[in-house]
């Protein structure tokens, strides 16, 4: 394949990944703290690499801002998914869904803590800690749901993506 064709394919895949993430977000919007984005980011990073997934996650953040408006969480979206991409790259590669379920679970548990980093910068230590503690019940739900979703869907999703040339 020519260089031009390769770039074209990467752009197309990035657009498709962004669309899938956006559709997944909308599909579970009504269930608080249950989401598919963590799973998708992990699987995409493994299949397509960190660069394309990073581009897709940033586009996803932009689309979310366009849809919901700019709010305090907007800044969070621009660093929290790249952070998950980094963790996925750092985890030793494995075919075992349990490995990525542990990652997804831990990420869900710490989601509020990562979000509160923004509060730390904008409102200080006390506000960040209070904000994080108040949200812990939601982080616990997030962690458990991420773990279960990844355990159930990691393999089927990975198999589906294996038919696509990365």
């Amino acid at each position, binding site marked *: 394949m020519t260089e031009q064709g390769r770039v074209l394919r990467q752009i197309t895949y990035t657009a498709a990944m962004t669309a899938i993430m956006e559709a997944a977000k909308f599909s579970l919007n009504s269930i608080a703290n249950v989401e598919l984005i963590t799973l998708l980011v992990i699987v995409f990073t493994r299949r397509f690499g960190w660069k394309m997934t990073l581009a897709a996650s940033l586009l996803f953040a932009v689309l979310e801002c366009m849809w919901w408006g700019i709010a305090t969480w907007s800044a969070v979206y621009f660093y929290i998914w790249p952070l998950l991409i980094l963790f996925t790259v750092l985890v030793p590669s494995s075919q075992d869904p349990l490995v990525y379920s*542990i990652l997804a679970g*831990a990420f869900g548990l710490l989601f509020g803590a990562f979000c509160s980093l923004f509060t730390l910068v904008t409102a200080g230590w006390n506000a960040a800690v209070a*904000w994080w503690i*108040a949200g*812990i019940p939601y982080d616990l739900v997030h962690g458990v749901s991420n773990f279960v979703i990844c355990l159930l869907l990691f393999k089927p999703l990975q198999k589906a993506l294996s038919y696509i040339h990365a």
Partner: protein
Amino acid sequence: MKNTAKKWIALALVLVLALGMFFIWRNNQPAAQEGSKEVTLEVVDSKGETKTYSVKTDAEYLSQLMDEVQKSGDFSYEGSVGDYGLFIETVNGETADYSVDQSYWAIYVNGDMGQYGADTQPVEDGGVYRLAYEK
């Protein structure tokens, strides 16, 4: 160390993290005061006009207080439960929609910006709870 052992250790650490977070949350719960309390609920609308409700209540949390005042007929609110608890959308018929004009209903407790959602904000005797339309 075998990979299987590493996986189970990682899982155990995540469980310890979850338990630790739960205990941090439980030990930092603001104690709600039970019994008869005299509190004030204020509503500041988009025009800056304030409506005040003086209430005697046994409500433990602000959302319960709002439910009680709503039953009195002169106050109403609507909201939805989101990722971080009860999110107030409409008060006394006035809707704040952040996605439209960056407006929202803020909670103030004794003049300070509240640190909790309406369903986790404790109600204390003598407390002044303000719902303010802000942009």
